[in-house]
Structures are given as structure tokens and as C-alpha cells.
């Protein structure tokens, strides 16, 4: 056991930090969310208006920096650390899917038995049974479809995942308030594709871990901006952050986030075991609701405006919460694997 980052891990975090300072942050997230192609045209503007809402530059920088493959070059723990950092910086690209899900498809390029080779990103990930918006789908080159999630039942997740190549423009972007670019993926478009070696249930484990890592970084920033704001904001001749009623609620949020963080790291280090992955997703995404509610409530009216950065992170928390069956589904998955599995 060792809860400190190793030198190599710290080097990775420092490197991604430099890159995120340059390519991410709340300002950029707000700009990407709001400004369309005509303003502040960047290199991708020729790909159409909605293209700008995805951070291609960040995506590319992370890929070129080798971060997408870090689960292979180092381990999934480092991939989780970087995922958390990207989320914390408000990065608007599908890094988590690349680094924690796609990297663990069992499609190891060095493995002679593996025929798939690397998958070109961005990759969006969706459940076959659903038909709503999917994060990053309007910009994705590939859609990873997981069938038969059945919410919780691990026994129902047999069968393999499918990969569908997406032609540009086939997926309609959809307007959403929840902080990520999204595309509408009707059920019919979730059919077909080629089967991967990895079975659904395993991918769901990694997906859960990825959600938790994203939620952790996102929650941390939401709390940070709130604490920072309330340490300045004065009413009644006092700093609002000095009221104990406020302090306790922020401290409770901290306890939840801190637990999400270490559960995420441990789960990543252990390779996303079934029960552990369900546990960390259930915990982190339940915490996400609380962190959302408390940070907004305690920020007052300013928290709802674009002039204050809170929304960059807060709104995303709810998007993460809706994926993959939601908190209730994750919790039930724990029960299934711990108390209802064949081993018992």
C-alpha cells in the first residue's frame, strides 16, 4: 500500500497538467459550449458548426502525448489519474472512454491473437437498449455499443460489445444543458457493427470506473470554485464561508469526494473488478448529486450564471449520473456481484 504518487506517476500528472493548462480550463469549456464556428474560428471550423463544441485540439494533444494509451504503457491507475485531471480541468473531449474503456478492450496491438488494432477516436459509448443522447456521439468516429446491460444483473451481460464506425454527420448533435457535446443516437443506429473480443460485462466494469474518475475530477473542481468563492463572499459583515452551517456542508462534500477519489484509484489499480467498479460508480455518482446541490445552493444566484465557472463542472455531474443505469443500477450491481453471484 502506498497512497502517494510515485515519481513516474507524478511526472505523468505534471506532463498532463502542462497540456491542460494550455488546452483546457473553464474559460475554454465555456467558449466551446457557447461559441459556434463563425466566432473565434479554429482549425476545425470547416467541419461544421457543431464541431466546435468538441475540443479536438485537446483530444489531439492528449493522443499525441501518449495519454490515450497510458493504460497499456503504464497501467489503468495512471489512466484514471489522468482522466480525473482532464475532468478537473473541464476538458471537453472523450478522453475517459479512450483511456479507460477503449484501452481495455483487450485489443492489445502487441497481442498476436488480437485482430482489432487500435480504434480511431473520438469514441462514444452507448447502451444498445437506450435511444437518447450520447456524450460525444456527434463528433465520434466510432460508437462502442454495449448490449444487454439489464441495469444490474451481471449474468445478463454475456456476449460481446460491438463497434460501429460512424460517418461524419450521421449522428445529429443535440442541444443539451449538461456540459458535454452530445449526439442523438436512435436505437436503430445502435445495431450492427463488428463484434469485439471483449465481453459486455467487462466493458461495463471499465465504463463504471471511467465515470467515477470523471465524476471525481469534476466534483473536485465544483467544490474548489465554491470554497474559493465563499471564502471571499461577504454578507452580514462576515465571510459566508465562516458560517458553520455552510462549513459543515462543504466538509461533508469533501468527505464524499475524497472517498470517490481513493475508491477510483484502488479500483483502477486492481483492474476494475466487477464489485469494485460498481462500488466506485455508485459512490461517486451519488456523491455527485450532493455536490451539485450543495455547491449551487451555497453559491446563491451567481452560481447559475455564465459569469461564474461553477456550471462548467456542476452540470456535467448530472450527465454522468444518467449513464449506464444510474446510481440505483450501480448499487444493484454491487448486490448482484457481492451477494448474489455464483460464488456464494
Amino acid at each position, binding site marked *: *500500500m*502506498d*497512497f*502517494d*504518487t*510515485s515519481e513516474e*506517476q507524478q511526472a505523468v500528472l505534471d506532463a498532463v497538467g502542462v497540456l491542460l493548462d494550455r488546452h483546457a480550463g473553464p474559460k475554454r469549456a465555456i467558449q466551446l459550449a457557447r461559441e459556434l464556428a463563425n466566432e473565434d474560428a479554429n482549425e476545425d471550423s470547416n467541419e461544421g458548426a457543431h464541431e466546435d463544441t468538441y475540443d479536438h485540439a485537446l483530444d489531439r494533444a492528449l493522443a499525441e502525448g501518449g495519454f490515450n494509451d497510458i493504460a497499456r504503457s503504464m497501467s489503468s*491507475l495512471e489512466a484514471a*489519474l489522468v482522466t480525473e485531471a482532464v475532468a478537473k480541468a473541464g476538458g471537453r473531449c472523450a478522453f475517459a472512454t479512450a483511456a479507460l474503456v477503449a484501452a481495455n478492450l483487450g485489443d492489445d496491438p502487441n497481442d498476436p491473437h488480437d485482430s482489432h488494432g487500435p480504434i480511431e477516436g473520438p469514441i462514444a459509448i452507448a447502451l444498445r437498449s437506450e435511444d437518447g443522447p450520447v456524450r460525444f456521439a456527434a463528433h465520434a468516429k466510432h460508437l462502442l455499443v454495449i448490449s444487454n446491460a439489464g441495469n*444490474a444483473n451481471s449474468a445478463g451481460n454475456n456476449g460481446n460489445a460491438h463497434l460501429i464506425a460512424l460517418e461524419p454527420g450521421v449522428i445529429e448533435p443535440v442541444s443539451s444543458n449538461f456540459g458535454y457535446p452530445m449526439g442523438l443516437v436512435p436505437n436503430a443506429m445502435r445495431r450492427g457493427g463488428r463484434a469485439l473480443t471483449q465481453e459486455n460485462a467487462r466493458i461495463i466494469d471499465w465504463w463504471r470506473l471511467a465515470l467515477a474518475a470523471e465524476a471525481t475530477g469534476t466534483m473536485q473542481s465544483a467544490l474548489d470554485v465554491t*470554497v474559493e468563492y*465563499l*471564502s471571499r463572499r461577504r454578507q452580514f459583515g*462576515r*465571510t459566508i*464561508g*465562516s458560517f*458553520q452551517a*455552510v*462549513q*459543515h456542508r*462543504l*466538509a*461533508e462534500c*469533501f*468527505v*464524499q469526494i*475524497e*472517498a*470517490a477519489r*481513493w*475508491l477510483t*484509484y*484502488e479500483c483502477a*489499480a*486492481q483492474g476494475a473488478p466487477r464489485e*469494485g467498479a*460498481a*462500488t*466506485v460508480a*455508485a*459512490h461517486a455518482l*451519488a456523491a455527485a448529486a450532493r455536490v451539485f446541490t450543495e455547491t449551487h445552493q451555497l453559491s446563491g444566484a451567481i452560481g447559475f450564471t455564465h459569469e461564474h465557472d461553477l456550471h462548467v463542472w456542476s452540470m456535467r455531474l448530472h450527465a454522468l449520473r444518467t449513464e449506464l443505469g444510474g446510481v*440505483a443500477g*450501480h*448499487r*444493484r*450491481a*454491487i*448486490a*448482484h456481484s*457481492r*451477494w*448474489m453471484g455464483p460464488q456464494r
Partner: protein
Amino acid sequence: MQFEWTADDKRFREELARFLDETLPADWDELSKEGPGSDAQAEFSKVFCRRLAERGWLTPHWPSAYGGRDATPWQHAVLSEEMWSRGEPRGPQYMNVNWIGPTIMEFGSDEQKALHLPAISEGRVLWCQGFSEPEAGSDLVALRTAAERDGDDYVINGTKIWTSYANHADYCFLLARTEPESKRHKGISVLLVPMNTPGIELREIPSVVGHRYFHEVFFTDARVPASCRLGPENEGWAVVSHALQYERVGAPRYARAARTLDRLADYARENGTLDDPTIQEKLGHARTMCEAARLLSYKVIDQRAKGLPPSADTNVARVAGTTVDRAVGELALEICGENALADGSFADANFRMSMTAGVAVGATEIQLNLIASRILRLPKE
């Protein structure tokens, strides 16, 4: 960063678990129901701790100079988890080995060491902790119990309250004011007081938690020799602070909660309710809290293993630990339904054991205050 137990630690846990399976009597569940302070468990602890001591497992974390094995803080954590998850068969003696002994090693005279350490490491003595007073709970430094110097003696007057195990204890680790008129942290000393000293009287405080759980301890001109004082006179606060360092994470409540939860799942399975998704959801939720508290405690153990000074991460771990303990206690009531109502039922016993979490050993609100100021650095008034 890495999250693997070493092979040694794993083996230690396995051996310990096997030992417990073999050693705990068939009626252990029944026996342990009323908590570590019950007559039955206090008695049992004397037998059990002796057997642990024979194996070197009562004080493995003590230095070899004092008969320990220099086990790491991680192994100490394994020990605590295994014990606590079985309802603490060491009874009140967990206090002796966790912090009373180590504090005596640090501050004790040779005489004190010779008197107390073997008794503790051989499992033949019970202690109680005389900290809280009617007017000094969360605000411990408001304590007023006085120990006035009279020649070679101290004469103690005052009242301690909530003192667990006082009825069984041979000694009390007592905090008293040795400097009259002193305020707050100053002027306090630690006294190691034999409980058979004339002038000490006990009153049991009946409670919903369990029989003989709480006591009031009255000191009326109780006279003890000055050689009972641990550490320098009037510098007792430093001694206590040091002592509490050993108790950084406190009892691994999450370990007991996790075990209770497994049993609740068994109960639900046997009663056909485990297939109910709402039950699954609740069990799963509680499980996330156990795991959260476990990792937050490990973070503190990691710091301790590295010899770092105590940090507010301790408070974080404590909040999570008490939260899960109470949540599982309440879930037991819910899952067991009316079966929870009978005195001594599984759910009843668990609930009562869990309900004091959040108040005992530093109330949750105090932990939150410390997190707010030390970690979030929120401003003071």
C-alpha cells in the same frame, strides 16, 4: 501509489481469521451482543487476550523491546479490522494495546513500565479512560476534576462521566487539573489511577445502548501517590495528544459494518427478500459507504506508516466511519422488520451498537469543523 497488501500482510490476515474461527466460542454472537463493555465480554477478554498474547498477536505492533514484534501500522490495521469485524473479542483491552501501553512506553517511568506493560501485553488487566466530564464533552479542555498535590500524594476530587468499562477496570487513565485555577490546555496532568483507590465511587447510568454501558465516576478525596503521574506535571495535554495519535483512525467501524452487511444479505436471502431490487439497492448503497470509509482510513494508516504527523485526514476518515456504522445499523432495522424489535435480536444489537457512533470519541460535528478549517481552509468567524 499502489493498493496491494504485501504477502506477509495477507498471510497475517488469513492466520488471524483462522485463529478467530477456531477460538471464538460457538455462542460468541450471543456473548458479544452487548458490546465490549458487557460483563460477559470483559470476562471473555481475559481468556481471549491471553491466548492472543501467546501467539504474539495481542501487541504485535509494539516494539520488540516491550515484547512486541515491530509489526507495521498496516498489520496493526489488519488486526483491528479482524477484531472489530468480529465484535471486538478483546473487549475493553483494545484500548490498552492501542494507545495506553504505547503512551506509557513514551512517557512512563521505569517503575510504571514495569508495572503496567507486562500486564497489558499479557492480557490480564482492564483499563478505562477518564476524560469526559459533565461540563467537558466535546470541549474536553473545560475539564475540572482536580488533583491537588499533598506531599507525595495527589488528592483527587471531581466527576468523570460516560466512562466505559469503569465497572471492570483495574486502572483509569485519568485527566485531571493539577494546577488550581489553570485554564484550558494548561495545568492538566495524566494520572494512572488504581480503581480500587478509596474515595472512588461508581454509578451506572442506565441507557438505551446497553447494560452497564455508561458510568459516572466520582472522586472524593481519592488519594494516589505522585508516582501515578504519567509524564511531567501540568503537561498532561501533550501526553494526551500523543496518546490520541495512536488512535488516529479509531476503531475500524467500517469493518464491523461490512460484516453486518454481509449478514443482512444472508438474512435477506433466507427470507426471500434479496431478490427485491429495492433491497439490493439499499444493501449496495451501504456497501459503498463501507468501502469509502475503508479507503479513507487506509489513507491515514499510510501516513502513519510513513511516520508523518497526524493530519485532518483523520477527521475525514472518522466522519465516513461513523456515517457507515449508523447507516448499516438503521438498515438492519429496516431489513429485519419486526424481527428487529426483540431485545437482543441481531438487528437490535447492531443498531444499539451503532447508534453512539458520531458522538463517542469526538462527535461528527467537531470532525467537520476541523475538516472545514484545516483542509478547506474556510475562514474563521
